[in-house]
């Protein structure tokens, strides 16, 4: 139970391999902003579905590489900052390693299971292996069938957002839980932001609980998944996603937005206030 800024300072280092996971739901926006605020550099970012928060991190020059399987603004369109980095090298070049979702989940599961690789029925007939030497093919030792193989993902640090934690630091999440548990278990260090701390988790049987001893830091950030959503707490702010398209399409508009709302604010509460003030003025 740490301040988020302190957790990011302690656990995210320049050059680290970092996964901020969340499949549409529970995306750790607050933590992503703190990475931007602290000016981390040279990160290798991993995520199945890099979306607006990765657009912001990449546009702020924090990343040198992205491993992913679907990069877009869900329901809206392109990630302009991601494209600008890949296609024009602005603000710095971004190398991409591209998979399918099935490949990424297999790689995360292998990471969580401490296996060097995972096997899947995938990629056959597609052009993905031509551009990604981390997609290889192996033979089944029993049937001789040809199957795809991907190397395990083992992030230095994984960051996720969850609904709540108890005072001992055990974390509970529910709803669309994506690959978050695997991403945490595959990582050397893990940061979790939560909506609230409670005295008792009251976790239903067999729910997704992250015991305190697999998490390096748990930080309360109310609304920390905004503009994505936290089931049981708040809905997805679809308007923000649509608006982002206009902000991100232009380098200067993007830069001034980041300066005004992210690097120009102290924390995520400050960001939300800054955004609200702007909305009221408009």
């Amino acid at each position, binding site marked *: 139970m740490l301040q988020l800024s302190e957790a990011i300072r302690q656990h995210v280092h320049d050059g680290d391999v970092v996964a901020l996971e969340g499949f549409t739901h529970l995306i750790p926006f607050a933590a992503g902003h703190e990475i931007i605020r602290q000016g981390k550099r040279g990160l290798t970012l991993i995520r199945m579905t890099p979306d607006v928060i990765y657009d912001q991190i990449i546009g702020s020059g924090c990343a040198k590489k992205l491993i992913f399987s679907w990069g877009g603004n869900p329901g809206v369109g392109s990630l302009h900052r991601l494209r600008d980095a890949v296609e024009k090298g602005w603000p710095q070049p971004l190398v991409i390693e591209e998979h399918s*979702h099935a490949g990424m989940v297999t790689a995360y599961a292998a990471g969580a299971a401490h296996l060097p690789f995972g096997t899947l029925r995938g990629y056959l007939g597609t052009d993905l292996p031509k551009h990604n030497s981390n997609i290889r093919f192996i033979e089944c030792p029993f049937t001789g069938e040809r199957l795809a193989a991907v190397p395990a993902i083992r992030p230095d640090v994984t960051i996720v957002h969850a609904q709540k934690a108890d005072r001992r630091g055990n974390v509970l999440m529910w709803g669309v839980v994506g690959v978050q548990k695997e991403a945490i278990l595959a990582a050397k260090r893990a940061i979790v932001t939560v909506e609230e701390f409670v005295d008792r988790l009251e976790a239903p049987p067999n729910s997704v609980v992250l015991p305190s001893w697999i998490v390096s830091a748990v930080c309360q950030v109310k609304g920390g998944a905004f503009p994505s959503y936290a089931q049981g707490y708040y809905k997805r702010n679809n308007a923000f996603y649509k608006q982002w398209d206009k902000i991100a399409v232009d380098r200067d508009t993007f830069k001034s937005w980041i300066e005004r709302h992210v690097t120009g604010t102290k924390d995520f509460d400050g960001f939300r206030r800054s955004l609200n003030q702007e909305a009221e003025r408009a």
Partner: protein
Amino acid sequence: MPDTPYTADEMMTIAAARMLRNGAVCFVGIGLPSAAANLARLTHAPEVVLIYESGTIGSKPDVLPLSIGDGELAETADAVVSSVEIFSYWLQGGRIDVGFLGAAQIDRFANINTTVIGDYKTPSTRLPGAGGAPEIAASSGEVLITLRQTRRAFVEKLDFVTSTGHLDGGNSREQFHFPGKGPTAVITDLGILTPDPVTKELTLTSIHPGVPLEKVIEATGWPLKVAPELRTTAPPTENELRVLRDLQARTARAHADEL
């Protein structure tokens, strides 16, 4: 013919919805496929099982999701499982009857591209990428594809093969021993294309009412095969149109939130 006029997009969604049989287990892509699949569920196929790649099994959303992981999909599901589970046990595990996909580009053998237009390293348009599509195309019992028909989308040669359809046609897909039989129909705003049983080349087998054949041919980037007995798609019924428009109106209201 309904008295109510309808758009080409409405015809597309309704024609796509009709392809989904009641009780089928359908792995649903976001956008056009999701609209069609939910229309099917709200009309002739109330027992269809909709699975979204966010891990929601048996979702029954009241409004169309904007993203593949909207809360509505989880709240209305019979079960919500992890990403690893949905891709390995349910999709790869062979539990899906129909994969329902969109596409940016498609070729005559129903291979699809959702990765890049132009060169991979210096693309003219960078698309979101593969997502679940390659393995949906490989492992679903069959695949339905729905997209608008234009020369930019229906191309002689894909810039990138993201998901394997019938590969080079004929038996060429069989070399991969995919569990699924691949694309069985492509539903557009102009008509319905189905693979020839032998060559696997997409053939226009149904044309939507009022669409001139030349328009379909012009909207196709290869010399389009037309079935000798070309059918005309049944126009939308009043009920189909009403249910679709109600769904879209509910969706627009739900997503018109403020910042």
